[in-house]
């Protein structure tokens, strides 16, 4: 027996608006039961892509397959996908039960059966007994769950979610991330989720696609996207990073020696990237990859180490950081400040040493220069 085809396949999908190419030859597959996120800045084409899957826009070229069948030309009301809209689009003229039962009514399901299935799905999203309430009597998080229930009651092959957490406040959003993930696991339905919030994508997804200017820059599990970004855009967009512009001064196997414009020397490991001496590169270094040390005692195995002055302490609980000015070059870098107590007394003006492993930095050819 052949393995089941992926729930959703996009083959070379392209969408033009006049001269503008909103989606540019995008390819991906989403296996059954997985949580797939498309992460990108606003205007990158992710909404267009999602709306093409839902059927509200026709691709200019390419093919879309759901459960192995092409849905090109199939109107949205005949597609086996459901969508949770950005502002949820709960029908204000109907109560919760009628909202959730809307799709079943369209299919001509018997009334008693609709009632049973609506109650059942509301139970599963943790909102038993709200059928008779009006939409405006629910809290933001409850509306969220009703919107998901309204789709899930139809047992769609793929559930599309268009930044549904955007309108919630910070605290509720953190909570809903966890809840969405567990709902997805409980229903075992394929979710395609678009967002510009990297934390949403990283926390919930099995796979993340990072999108920019209509193209996918990288597809992979969250850890891979975070730790091994494929392009400079991904490195800059996902997570925080210090960036340096530099020039390759020596190549020694996979180890590069770089010089920044202000004259600082650094070592960066860049396996399989084939840089040449003299080439311009962009270097990305995560704040938590930098270690604070009290002295420059041991510069072992090529670690980069340099003295600096603390210019500000940005206390933010577990995400606290320091801004450090490099003594030699004057460059500013952000360094994560672990709240372990070791640096509890650090203050502005203190001298510290920063140390980082060459394998922790990522190095990409500078744009426009070959």
């Amino acid at each position: 027996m052949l393995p089941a085809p992926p729930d959703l396949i996009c083959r070379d999908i392209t969408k033009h608006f006049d001269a503008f190419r909103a989606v540019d030859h995008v390819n991906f597959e989403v296996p059954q039961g997985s949580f797939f996120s498309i992460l990108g800045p606003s205007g990158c084409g992710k909404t267009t892509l999602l709306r093409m899957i839902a059927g509200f826009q026709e691709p200019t070229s390419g093919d879309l397959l759901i459960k192995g069948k092409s849905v090109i030309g199939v109107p949205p009301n005949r597609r086996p996908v459901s969508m949770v809209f950005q502002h949820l689009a709960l029908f204000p003229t109907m109560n919760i039960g009628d909202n959730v039962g809307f799709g079943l009514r369209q299919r001509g399901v018997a009334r008693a059966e609709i009632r049973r299935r609506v109650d059942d799905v509301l139970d599963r999203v943790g909102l038993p007994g709200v059928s008779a309430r009006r939409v405006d009597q629910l809290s933001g998080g409850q509306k969220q769950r009703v919107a998901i229930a309204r789709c899930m009651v139809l047992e769609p092959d793929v559930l599309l979610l268009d930044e549904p957490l955007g309108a919630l406040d910070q605290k509720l959003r953190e909570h809903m991330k966890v809840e969405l993930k567990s709902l997805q696991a409980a229903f075992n339905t394929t979710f395609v989720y678009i967002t510009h919030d990297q934390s949403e994508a990283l926390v919930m997804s099995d796979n993340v696609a990072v999108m920019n200017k209509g193209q996918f820059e990288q597809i992979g599990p969250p850890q891979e996207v975070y730790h091994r970004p494929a392009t400079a855009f991904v490195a800059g967009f996902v997570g925080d990073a210090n960036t340096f512009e530099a020039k390759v001064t020596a190549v020694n196997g996979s180890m590069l020696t770089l010089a920044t414009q202000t004259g600082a020397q650094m070592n960066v490991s860049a396996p399989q990237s084939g840089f040449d001496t003299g080439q311009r590169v962009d270097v990305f270094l995560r704040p938590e990859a930098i270690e604070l040390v009290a002295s420059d005692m041991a510069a072992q195995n090529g670690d980069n180490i340099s003295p600096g002055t603390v210019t500000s302490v940005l206390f933010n609980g577990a995400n606290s950081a320091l801004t450090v000015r490099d003594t030699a070059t004057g460059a500013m870098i952000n360094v994560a400040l672990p709240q372990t107590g070791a640096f509890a007394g650090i203050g502005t003006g203190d001298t510290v040493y920063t140390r980082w492993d060459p394998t922790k930095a990522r190095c990409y050819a500078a744009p426009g220069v070959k």
Partner: protein
Amino acid sequence: MSSDASRLGFYLLLAPILLWLVVLIILPHVGLFVVSISEKIGPREYEIGMGNYAAFFQEPLFWRTFARTAIMSILATALTLILGFPIAYYIAKLTQGRTKTTLFLMCMIPFWVSELVRTFGWMILLRETGVISNGLQALGLVSGPVEFLYNDAAIMVGLVYTSILFMVVPLVTTLDSLDNSLIEAGYDLGGSSTAVMREIVIPHAMPGIVSGCIVVFMLSLGNYLTPILLGGKDSLWFTGMIYTQFITRFNWELGSAFGFLLLILSSLVVFLGLKLSGQSLSETMGRS
């Protein structure tokens, strides 16, 4: 700020509105009612009685005209809704930016023009020597002049024309406020066009439909020009009958009774319309 000064300000603001409403609206209607229940028993001698109302119910011409006016007005309202809804929907949902503004303004312009001018236009079009009759002859569809004026269809055309903007404008406003994603959600959940229309668009547009229908019905019921000019001498419109009693027959008592009956009918329809749709007068009218 002293509360005396503010009280004075309050009463100064209260005075004009009370003067307006009491002197020009409430007292005249009370007066109208009093006159309607007066029966003339001699020169400048009256006694209270329901004789004028009895006369209305005894004379078939009177109450048939009344019923005819009501039914034609309901018909005109329904027709206006059916014809106007697709237009409002088109303007609100299928056009954008400048096209939308232009179409909306084009809808408004006939509204700014005097009803007399509009009706005059229809007379030029519909009469025996008119544009449509001549056009049909030129096309060879009819052999001689055709009179399109002075029948109920002409009245209907005129009534719908006169009031359609009062239907389209509130409908455009309410349909505009319907988020497109609600329509998309309806389709996404498997709804057909009919189901989306019936379950999402129309319930949302209900306030606009009600306020449009109320205004159109009242305008038709109280219309005088259109039925008289397009329907001719025998148009049998109730306002025409009121005019005859007041100005031609000088029977103010009977005329007042007619006026009061018309007022009751129109208030009843407004009241029922609001009750059926569960809305209040303030929100329905205050919006326009």
